[in-house]
């Protein structure tokens, strides 16, 4: 593994790579990695993207991130404000290209759980709630799920509760939309006729076998599976500069 690149850096770079130039992209709450990925993308290959902050600023100059992804200091030098209800209208029009969502559990078809461990009526663990997941998962052209603790307690055979809809819980129309999973071990997609999870790349220092072992179902592997691309030092510097406090590490603790 490249000594200079840590796991958050790898994940942020992989997440940033999912954004194309001219895409309109939104991040939500509790999202240090998406905030950093959007900033990296805009400062590298996607200068023309529409950046909608969960803090409501459009195209802000994010010079620092904070424990809250809605911190208004992340709106600095924004060109406009754009409310979440406006961003959701864009999504309903099919014009929100990319959204980043979290998951406490995920299964082979990309169903995510952010609601409860155990029974919904008497939860063993009350999770924070799905926020935008149930709404945005099916209708957004591309959803990137980030997971910082890849294990077979997270990648499960069956989620306790379907908060965000995987491919087997979608209408045909929405099956064409893309889901990508970026974990601390690798990048997974669903680009096969069955829309079942498959390993696209493994991060440096990790292997396909390790990912399979830490996944609670029979995850597939793409024929041309490869190592996840590593960001250059300028990307890492960029990340370090705007996250000197290491907020991005919080999710890994």
């Amino acid at each position: 593994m490249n000594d200079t690149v840590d796991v958050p850096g790898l994940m942020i770079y992989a997440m940033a790579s999912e954004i194309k130039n001219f895409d309109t992209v939104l991040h939500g709450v509790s999202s240090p990695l998406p905030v950093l990925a959007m900033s990296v993308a805009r400062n590298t290959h996607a200068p023309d993207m529409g950046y909608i902050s969960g803090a409501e600023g459009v195209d802000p100059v994010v010079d620092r991130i904070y424990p809250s992804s809605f911190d208004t200091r992340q709106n600095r030098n924004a060109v406009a404000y754009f409310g979440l209800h406006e961003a959701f209208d864009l999504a309903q029009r099919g014009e929100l290209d990319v959204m980043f969502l979290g998951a406490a559990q995920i299964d082979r078809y990309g169903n995510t759980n952010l609601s409860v461990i155990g029974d919904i009526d008497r939860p063993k663990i009350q999770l924070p709630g799905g926020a935008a997941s149930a709404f945005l998962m099916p209708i957004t052209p591309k959803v990137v799920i980030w997971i910082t603790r890849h294990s077979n307690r997270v990648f499960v055979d069956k989620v306790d509760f379907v908060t965000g809809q995987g491919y087997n819980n979608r209408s045909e129309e929405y099956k064409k939309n893309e889901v990508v999973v970026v974990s601390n071990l690798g990048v997974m997609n669903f680009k096969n006729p069955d829309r079942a999870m498959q390993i696209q790349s493994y991060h440096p220092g990790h292997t396909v076998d390790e990912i399979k072992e830490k996944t609670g179902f029979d995850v597939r592997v793409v024929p041309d599976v490869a190592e996840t691309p590593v960001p250059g030092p300028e990307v890492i510097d960029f990340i370090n500069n705007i996250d000197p406090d290491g907020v991005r590490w919080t999710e890994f603790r």
Partner: protein
Amino acid sequence: MKKVLTSLEEAAKFVKDGDLVTTGGATFHRAPMELVRELVRQGKKNLNLVDREPALDFDLLIGAGCVAKIRAGMLAFEVFGLAPNFRKKSEAGEIITKEGACQPIIAGFRAAAMGLPSLPVKGMLGSDLLEISEVIGGYKQVEDPFTGEKMIAVRAIEPDVAVIHVQKADEYGNIRIEGPVYEDVIKAKAAKVVVVTAEELIPTSEFRKMPEATTLPHFIVDAVVESQKGAYPCSCFNYYDADYDHIKDYLKAAAEDQFKEYLNNYVYGRKTDE
């Protein structure tokens, strides 16, 4: 009509036990914390809380025993993790948790703001959230009358009271929010009663100088009270940032069973970190 009040005590009296209440702001930003603390001091009971993404405001009310039911898209403390009192009371079955999703909650507020009984939303289909609709209340699958598209109709959410903290207000209830507005305009229009706490009361003449900066006109607002640092420890754009250290202390107090002490210090005792 002058709507300005002289005390938070009076303002908090607009909230009755059992009311459906929503608060302005989002997570740690421009939440009406001082009025929330006053609700705790007045010992409100059985509140029914609804919001898209609340945090400290809802968790404090829950921890202080003011809440019977909660409906939110997400209730967490951002990167600090789960909302401690929410988690505890929900797992103990002491509050009823009706998990929604951000868009249906916004749509419910919007329906009420528009004077409509309900509003349809896309997405949602295929989520188990719909299967607990008996608990959640207010979802129905519908087909668009023109296209036949299957959508979820969300019943209007009309709070008894919306409590909103803003930067500036005048004595008639004209208000100015600076920076992000979140759903505050929608919530205010949706609610039966709108109670506003403001960092500053400014003369109406200031509103007349830049009407384009006015967020809500007086006829939407029912009561106004000045409340400096009224969002603390949450942020108030152009006035102060969120005090994340205080929020960490709150979490620590909740985790270490010292929540009563926290309430004594910061709510009943009105101690501040300043």
